């Protein structure tokens, strides 16, 4: 365990209606075993002691699965490590004396709520527009009634692994939500259970995505590179095909 001293440049913004700015903090009682969020916990306890308001940031599971944590660390959503959420990032990847700039996700469809916290309810609304199979409780056939080839189940799972964190939007130069949206569409359109609503679903979800004010996809691949679950951009390709076919069919 090595001691660490850092300079943190953090975006502070009291609420969505006020403007924000960067504040700089020196933190020295740190060590390399801490997770990135524990490092911020230390900063926050220092701030409380100094009678200042702590830095607000979203987090819950701290295991890389709930998708709540969300910060851009030195220009990279969830920081420098591949396939890692902010909560799983550890301080051993930083050096003593480093300056770290921490910003919230930036997108029109993710307005800042406070400091590093943003409002991602646009994602919920996209799911509400059609990210489900319409099956009422109790009306399901036996789980083994429809066999699903293992490879299809695995491919659907790869898409379903999305944690809805929004790093794809944050990393995309167009603030496009295509990776998130296409992952959900593909999960359901790959599985037999998702077939009946396949066409309607993709139309509605794409329409909602556009309406929320996300940008369009220019295939830079930044989303896939920054996605903590390494979701493949191939789902975007699939979404494009599904979307066009569903519209051509009418």
């Amino acid at each position: 365990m090595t001691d660490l001293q850092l300079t943190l440049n953090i975006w502070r913004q009291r609420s969505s209606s006020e403007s924000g700015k960067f504040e700089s903090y020196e933190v020295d009682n740190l060590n390399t075993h801490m997770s990135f969020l524990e490092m911020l916990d230390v900063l926050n306890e220092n701030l409380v002691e100094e009678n200042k308001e702590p830095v607000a940031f979203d987090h819950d599971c701290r295991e890389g699965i709930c998708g709540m944590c969300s910060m851009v660390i030195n220009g990279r959503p969830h920081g420098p490590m591949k396939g890692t959420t902010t909560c799983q990032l550890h301080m051993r990847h930083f050096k003593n004396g480093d300056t770290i700039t921490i910003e919230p996700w930036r997108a029109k469809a993710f307005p800042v709520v406070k400091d590093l916290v943003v409002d991602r309810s646009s994602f919920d609304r996209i799911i509400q527009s059609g990210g489900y199979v319409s099956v009422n409780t109790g009306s399901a056939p036996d789980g083994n009634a429809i066999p699903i080839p293992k490879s299809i189940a695995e491919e659907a799972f790869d898409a379903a692994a999305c944690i809805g964190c929004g790093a794809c939007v944050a990393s995309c130069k167009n603030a496009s939500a295509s990776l998130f949206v296409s992952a959900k569409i593909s999960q359901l359109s790959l599985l037999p259970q998702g077939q009946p609503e396949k066409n309607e679903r993709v139309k509605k979800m794409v329409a909602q995505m556009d309406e929320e004010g996300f940008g369009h996809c220019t295939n830079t691949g930044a989303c896939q590179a920054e996605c903590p679950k390494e979701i493949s951009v191939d789902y975007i390709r699939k979404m494009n095909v599904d979307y066009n076919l569903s519209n051509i069919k009418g």
Partner: protein
Amino acid sequence: MNNYFTSTIFRKILAALSGLFLTFFLLGHLAGNLQLFISGVEGQTQFNKYALFMTTNPVVKLLSILTYASILLHVVLTLYLAFKSRQARPIGYAVSSGNSNSSWSSNNMAILGTFLLLFIIVHMRSFWYEMHFGEMPYQYLDDGTKIKDLYLITTSAFNNPLYTLFYILSMIALALHLKHGVGSAVQTIGLKLPNYEKPLKYIAESVALIIPATFASIPIYLYIKNL
């Protein structure tokens, strides 16, 4: 609820199709230009005859209209989308490390494209405009007929080092634009199937390199020849 035609995906498809069409156009255009490598009167004659054919044949006319339309569509759509995407992030990042997760060319398509637009205008002014509306010199053929001497216009244009340099730079821009563009368009229209990803990438990158490189080799050749 049908907003297909106003959806980002549809617009994106059109941008991709027009971009791909322009890429094919470039291939054809390139084939014509290669005739400039033939030297002497023989080359001059062949090139000028080709130019005449290209400006008069009705099928080619139709194709050229399609090309203009594609350029227009491509420019309008891509710039509109780029503008909309800028709006999707009203406040930018203080620290940006875009190039650690994506290629430089993919992040600068609009700048590259705008440069290409500038090139297209200059290029059209020098050759297309001259050919159609300018005071063209004539080549007198053996059979006594005369045709517009685009060959002379072209070869003399590349006597100018600045003009040649501009052309070469534009081809570099084109190479970068196509480096991302071709692969991206294939992905957009849904053909970048995972199983073929490697060969497709290979083809796309070759196209992106070969077209502009061959284009650029002509003025270099002409310039050096005229030294």
